[in-house]
């Protein structure tokens, strides 16, 4: 038993330099179950209170030093318990809600967040803000992103819509459909998704549909931050066979940081700007 206790303490205190025991009441012990939740916690300034994050929580860099509790689709409940959390933030999908229920039964507080759209993110930010007593910061962040959204929406409201294909995977081609937040990003930047409604959220499409959709711009979120360069290098080669597509003919294929563009997190304003830059490179209206 003593060794177990020691392990718990070591595990929990990996980052904090000797926290004094009495602080335990005020100091929260938070576990984030997804990379974007980790980013939110850091931005709200509660980094000292995060005791566990999921694998691939790569941003900000400090997040990599925090104890890993498994991947976000296969979290390890024992690792979660070892961190002695007082609050576990989860996303609203099967594996995570199941885990949340089990944690609740054990007596650990959880908060499930549905972050599937931009409005969902705003809501989640204020919920997390109040949970960790940082409502003011959360509100500031929300209005900063909202301002960016309004600025871009207003700027491109009357300009011609640019047809965009958001390619998440090449083999087979898989793109972001109309019910994704990538679609929201495209529309904010004055674009329109080249793919119409489908039953899939991220539909796999055939080459025929790819050509037929005639996108003006192709945006590829990279697998992760490190792979942008490799992906850029292979993009030209991969798309050359579709040279009738305007985006390919005019060399308008953009690989953007997937950690930025595929996560609904606090850096969303940056992502919005990035997508807008891809659609209108010289700031043309």
């Amino acid at each position: 038993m003593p060794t177990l206790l020691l392990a718990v303490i070591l595990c929990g205190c990996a980052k904090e330099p000797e926290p004094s025991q009495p602080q335990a009441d005020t100091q929260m012990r938070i576990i984030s179950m997804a990379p974007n939740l980790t980013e939110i916690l850091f931005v709200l300034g509660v980094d000292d209170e995060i005791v566990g994050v999921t694998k691939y929580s790569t941003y900000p860099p400090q997040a990599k030093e925090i104890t890993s509790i498994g991947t976000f689709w296969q979290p390890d409940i024992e690792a979660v318990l070892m961190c002695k959390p007082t609050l576990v933030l989860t996303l609203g999908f099967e594996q995570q809600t199941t885990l949340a229920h089990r944690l609740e039964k054990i007596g650990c507080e959880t908060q499930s967040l549905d972050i599937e759209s931009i409005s969902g993110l705003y809501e989640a930010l204020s919920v997390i803000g109040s949970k960790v007593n940082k409502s003011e910061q959360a509100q500031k962040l929300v209005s900063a992103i909202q301002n960016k959204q309004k600025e871009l929406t207003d700027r491109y409201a009357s300009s011609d819509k640019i047809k965009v294909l958001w390619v998440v995977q090449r083999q087979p081609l898989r793109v972001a459909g109309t019910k994704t937040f990538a679609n929201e990003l495209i529309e904010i930047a004055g674009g329109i998704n080249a793919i119409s409604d489908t039953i899939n959220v991220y539909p796999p499409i055939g080459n025929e549909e790819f050509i037929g959709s005639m996108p003006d711009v192709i945006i590829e979120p990279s697998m992760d931050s490190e792979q942008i360069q490799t992906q850029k290098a292979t993009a030209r080669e991969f798309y050359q066979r579709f040279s009738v597509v305007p985006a390919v003919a005019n060399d308008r294929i953009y690989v953007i940081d997937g950690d930025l563009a595929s996560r609904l997190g606090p850096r969303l304003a940056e992502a919005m700007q990035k997508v807008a830059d891809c659609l209108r490179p010289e700031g043309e209206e």
Partner: protein
Amino acid sequence: MTLTPQKLVLRSILAGVVLLGVMAACVWIGSQDVSLADVLKGPGVEGSPNIQYIIFMQERLPRICLAAIVGAALACAGVVFQAILRNPLADPYILGVSSGAGLGSIVAVLFSGTVIYGRIAGHFSWIAEATGMSSLMIMAFVGAMLTVWLVWVIGRVTGRTHVTGLLLAGVVVNAFFSALIMFLLSIARARQLQSTMFWLMGHMMLPENPLMVWFSGGVVLLGIVCLLMLGNSLNILSFGSDDAQSLGVPVKRTCFLAFGCAALITSVAVSLSGLIGFVGLVVPHAVRLVVGPDHRLLIPLSAIAGASFLVVADTIARVIIAPAILPVGVITALVGGPFFLILLIRYTKNIQWGPA
């Protein structure tokens, strides 16, 4: 045996005409509207290309041909495996092709970003450049051939009860490699998983170089012709290898040749399309139910029927949830199962089960 060459040729031509009819019909079905008039306008001039023509010539027509090639290869290989293994449950994947190819493709997807893989792949990049095939296709082909070779060697070691040994070796190697696949999938990242799952459910992949479609077609055709020439030996072999031996059939050589050809065309098919189930199992049985168990007829007709079936299945997969596509393996299983059961009920009265 009352099969005359005239009868054989006549029936094959008849079936071939049906296949061409199916292909001619399916080529006008797709997510994009393309009419004959559009295609006849030609490729268009520089600056304003004719999109319909390009879609038709570069994507749809090659894909239909590809489906026909794969379907023919799988159905034909199915017939042969059922014959040499004397087992009605045999399909082209039974001797490890599926798991070997699966392992190869997953390695290609998972490790494509790593330095070591890049260095090794760099040595072989000339293959990719010459053939226009992606590393996934090449790895799938190599994986399939290596696994079949492994199974063959193990089967040989087991000696006299050749067929049983081969079958068991195949099943166990399949199971073991499937376990490896499961392991790799469980450590894969979500997005890599998507790509691999689609492959495992069967998905037509056009090689970048259109010549590759014709080359694969040529290899498959050659394989089918070789198997056709073994047709009579396969007929005799289905009485059992001892009887065949005493009737003057070189059992070992026939088995080896048939096995090699079938494995080769299956590997080609798998590297082009992933794992499409059901075609190699259902089509041979369906054809056998209709025309009887003579391999000289069974092999060409199965090839043609398999080709037609997969062309139709792939067309459905392309358009049923347009603009998205379904993995074609889903369609072959959904359509193939009930279709086979109907045939089974209608024709079972006077049928001899399997080639055994």
